[in-house]
């Protein structure tokens, strides 16, 4: 069995009376693409928030690589190699696409307590940033302000920013949400080129994307993971069909 990169044990998060995470156990294996699916309100976003370090769990532990990151905040987790995209696109809108990615490189390379040299002339930031833009196919748009990029391009930019930090784990929160068919197919094709090279945790509603990309799928309902398995196993799981896939899928 392969090495576990991310290990979640007994993760519990309560919002008042609502149990958003109910003793979640989950292992993400190095190199796999692990999708988390579930109906709205199942607690997927809460789980992602706890993985990224935006939310503290009430109980339980998260191990990432060799570290217990349960009490680390988001910037520290990012520096340990955990990168993410947001459900609602989140970029530095006033900065060029290249600036956006260069900032991500900067956040990971040495200190930012450097007050003199112009950051935009720094090849150690700009070159890797250009390479990351190229890898998502945005190199021609490098000098465009992020706010002026099309929605799909902004999502690509987010991925480029994540990749520029050379992460070992990529958390993708609905990467194809709000995209047209063609755009989302392009994104899925791109993400499939990342598979294996990088471990991915994918939260997504688009079942085509999930079943194309995922090596394993975990199904969340009411804050609990009710099943984890390969795509065929999940398709064939009666409980999952009843709880979730039943209505319009499969």
């Amino acid at each position, binding site marked *: 069995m392969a090495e576990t990169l991310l290990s979640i044990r007994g993760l519990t998060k309560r919002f008042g009376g609502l149990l958003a995470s109910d003793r979640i156990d989950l292992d993400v294996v190095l190199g796999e693409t692990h999708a988390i699916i579930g109906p709205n309100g199942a607690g997927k976003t809460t789980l992602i928030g706890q993985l990224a370090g935006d939310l503290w769990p009430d109980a339980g532990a998260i191990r990432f690589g060799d570290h217990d990151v349960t009490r680390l905040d988001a*910037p520290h987790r990012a520096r340990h190699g955990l990168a993410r995209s947001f459900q609602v696109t989140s970029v*530095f809108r006033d900065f060029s696409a290249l600036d956006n990615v260069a900032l991500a490189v900067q956040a990971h390379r040495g200190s930012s307590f450097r*007050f003199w040299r*112009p*950051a935009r002339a720094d090849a150690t930031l700009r070159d890797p940033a250009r390479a990351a833009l190229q890898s998502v196919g945005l190199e021609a748009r490098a000098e465009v302000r992020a706010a002026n990029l099309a929605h799909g391009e902004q999502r690509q930019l987010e991925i480029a920013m994540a990749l520029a930090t050379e992460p070992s784990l990529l958390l993708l929160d609905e990467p194809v949400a709000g995209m047209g068919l063609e755009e989302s197919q392009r994104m899925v094709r791109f993400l499939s080129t990342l598979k294996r090279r990088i471990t991915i945790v994918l939260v997504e509603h688009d079942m085509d994307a999930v079943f194309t990309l995922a090596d394993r799928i975990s199904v969340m309902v009411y804050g609990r993971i009710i099943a984890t398995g390969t795509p065929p196993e999940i398709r064939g799981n009666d409980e999952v069909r009843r709880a979730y896939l039943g209505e319009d899928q499969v």
Partner: protein
Amino acid sequence: MAPSRRTLVLAAGGVALALVPPIAALTNQPFYLDLFRRMMIFAIAAVSLDLILGYGGMVSFGHAAYLGIGAYAVGIPAYHGLQNGWLQWGLAIAASALIALVIGAISLRTSGVSFIMITLAFAQMLYYLGISLETYGGDNGMRLAARSRFGGIVDLRDPAVFYYVVLAILVLFLALGSRLVESRFGMAVRAAKSNEARARAIGFSPLPYKLTAFVIAGGGGGLAGALLANQTEYLTPDFMHWTRSGEIMFMVILGGMGTLFGPVIGAVALLLLEDVLSALTAHWQIILGPILVLVVLFAKRGLFGLLVGETRDG
């Protein structure tokens, strides 16, 4: 082309400021020397506020506190017979940077309205502290016995010499500021302003960067305060009053937030308007108000944006 127009505007501004003393001497209007020196001193304060307000999104409503600290750092040693300018001005920068460190360490844990209110509250505390300093004039303030002394080289008693010292400090401050906002440090602060959640997600912990910027801005405000005490040869707790903080903020907004050079134009414009309008009517603020509203509504990057075109990003 925007860059050349920008360079042109900056060069014209620099030349104009450098020409004030000879013109004032030729026309025999020493008052203008005094007025423009005052403008440049407030410009230094406004530029330092722009570092955190325009580039860091930190709406500090207590920037006048550092003016006051800087002024008292000149006034108190002078009262006790210490007139060495290096000591006074060094103390002004160090003391205001230290106070900024304390205020920032507390206020930067909050954001939005809470941040505004905490910075305002600290400035008002210092204002009342100034009033309670009976030895140093209490709420009446006190006269500065003599301007700061720098040995034989620079004599601030000469109005033109003092003018060029202030101009040199302003130019130096702008030059350092332009490097700062384009450096890695500056980019980290600006990233946190642009989108804090994103900045955190890529691995920036914004607080240390913001706090450092806050301290630098405090030090700049303190230096402006030391200059202001020398300018007026008088210091009072009024330097720290919240309306003064508002005035500095107006200068930044009027000139253009996040433009660094804009606040200089803002300081010149505001004090000029104040001068011209107050000669027309005692209720000059009734005219000033709508002008500010118009600028905020229609000039996104302030007067500087109007002059150089609104093309710059980040």
